[in-house]
């Protein structure tokens, strides 16, 4: 990270006059920007040490056969040195098209993509619906708002724990379904029901953030736009389509991007809801964690390989998403 900042420093000063030497350019940019650099230094250091360095080490592990048996460690006073080998891209090849790669990677990949798409759609549409309701003039709006944000304020492990009790056989949910005469799925043990349960819980957890962000976005749309639209005889749907949605554009693009990233990496819900069970409902993150921590010997190399693949999927998605945003922005003028 520090490298990125430094590298850009050289390019940054646009030569109005003849270009000064490299050292002098550094000095100029230093005297001009040292305040800025001083202010971002803490974040660069903390992230560099706690995210950047582990990332580099993780990428290095993907090129080896490291596991908990051959990585150097300290036992009492004895230091056991590293004994893992460099294996090149074997890990990637094995994960992506080795024997059983469908069960180990691709099935989880498909489920992760579906999980992300379904959850973010539900988050966004329910969040937008509630935000629209809360944006109406009505009595008790503040109370509703507070009640609806509450899921956000309760720690995830508490709510997931509560959901586990509710979804258990004979728990509250099936009790309700039973009295209505509806089927009572085994939420925590049937593969398909497990997936549905994970989606329900994650939707419940994620809606408040979307709702509040979108509510903020709605409130920043000037009322005159709606008045103008009404004067032009726009129907309610047209107002929503041509005033509300474009007005929410900036908010939406940010929260959808964050929502995709967070849901894709949503560890707590699935991990706490099913623990070590539910092999089918594991998304890539929990699966990678299981390879690295949930088995003996711990397979650090495979786990890190999954991590790097996950990161690359998200980076590819984000750059396409941003390019798509920029293009539609241009198209809409």
């Amino acid at each position, binding site marked *: 990270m520090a490298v*990125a900042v*430094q*590298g*850009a*420093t050289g390019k*940054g000063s646009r030569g109005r006059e003849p270009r000064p030497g490299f050292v002098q350019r550094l000095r100029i940019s230093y005297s001009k*920007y040292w305040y800025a650099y001083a202010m*971002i230094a803490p974040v660069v250091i*903390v*992230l560099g040490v706690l*995210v950047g*360095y*582990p*990332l580099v080490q*993780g990428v290095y592990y993907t090129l080896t056969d490291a596991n908990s048996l051959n990585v150097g460690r300290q036992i009492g006073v004895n230091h056991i040195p590293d004994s893992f080998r460099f294996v090149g891209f074997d890990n990637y090849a094995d994960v992506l098209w080795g024997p059983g790669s469908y069960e180990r990677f691709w099935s989880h990949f498909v489920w992760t993509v579906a999980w992300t798409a379904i959850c973010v759609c539900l988050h966004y549409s*329910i969040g937008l*619906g509630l935000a*629209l*309701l809360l944006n*109406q003039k009505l009595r008790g709006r503040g109370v509703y708002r*507070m*009640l*609806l944000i*509450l899921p*956000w*304020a*309760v*720690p995830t*492990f*508490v709510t997931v*724990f*509560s959901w586990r*009790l509710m979804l*258990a056989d004979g728990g*509250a949910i099936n009790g309700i379904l039973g009295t209505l005469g509806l089927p009572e799925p085994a939420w925590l043990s049937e593969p398909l029901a497990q997936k549905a349960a994970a989606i329900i819980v994650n939707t*419940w957890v994620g809606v408040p953030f979307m709702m509040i962000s979108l509510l*903020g*976005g709605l409130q920043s749309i000037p009322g005159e736009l709606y*008045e103008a639209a*009404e*004067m032009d*005889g726009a*129907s*309610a749907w047209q107002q929503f389509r041509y005033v509300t949605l474009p007005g929410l554009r900036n*908010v939406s693009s*940010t929260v959808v991007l964050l929502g995709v990233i967070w849901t894709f*990496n949503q*560890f*707590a819900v699935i991990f*706490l809801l099913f623990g070590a069970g539910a092999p089918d409902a594991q998304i890539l*993150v929990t699966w*990678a*964690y299981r390879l*690295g921590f949930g088995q003996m010997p711990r397979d*650090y190399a495979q*786990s*890190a390989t999954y991590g790097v693949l*996950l*990161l690359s999927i998200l*980076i590819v998605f984000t750059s396409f998403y941003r390019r798509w945003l920029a293009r539609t922005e241009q198209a809409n003028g």
Partner: protein
Amino acid sequence: MTTATAPQAGDHHEAGTPMTVTTERPTAAAPAAARPARVRPRGERGPLGTALLHGALVLASLIALFPVVYIGFVSLGPGEMDYLHPGDIFGKASLANYSKVLGDTDFFSWFGNSVIVAGGTTVVGVLVAASTGYAVSRMRFPGHRQLMWTLLLTQMFPIAVLIVPMYTILASLQLLDSYLGLILVYSGTTVPYCAWLLKGYFDTIPVEIDEAGRVDGLSPFGTFWRLIMPLARPGLAVAAFYSFLTAWAEVAFASTFMLSSGKYTLAVGLQTFVSEHDHQWNLMAAAAVLIALPAALVFYLVQRHLVTGLTAGAAKS
């Protein structure tokens, strides 16, 4: 009462919410068509519309509240397996679990540890995020784009995969089993989002204020600290809320990095109630409720600011 309304909540919610747009607007549009000269027909709503609106919101609130209320209810049952028959709890509800958790366990020392770690994360995280956000918002220094991109990137990396290398780093820095180590780790995960949020918030504060500060002889740090920080309170409140909650509720790092039981946070201590040969679900439920209370308090304190704070952040970035 709850059981009578919750079923409708289930089927109404899925179909109802996305459609609210269509159910809501026609009532509003009707007067507009009849009397186009009205200034604010949007505020007008028939009694049916109002009833539907309240109905939908009550339903949604019930769904939002139910799991929270449910765990509170289960925590009143004194037997370990009472959660399997919640109906029986009515007859024998008591606060026995709470007195056991508060009196017979290390709850208070875990609570103290959690307060230190979550409080520390909030202070460190918000200060670091604010100075970063301010620098990116106001100073066009080379590399500011790369910095924002890097911050987004750190959100993408599955933290679960970073735990092992982080463990080795903290071990070599002698920060394992220490409050500072955990605070730094949490700050590393909360700062990127908070910096994005606060950058957006700072963007909405007019630059003229900074310029006025400069004219009066304040340094950039002085402007930031004495003028901008007080103005950014709603944004700071949201960032503090987010940092506090993240640190308060985190399980994976805390259980990996805090080794001695004297340093356990609440989230780790909670797990000691349920082990292989011991299933004290009732105590776990009571402890969970006690953990949720401070979070709810923080939430109550900042909830006024949530909408403004998040809006500016999201609307501008």
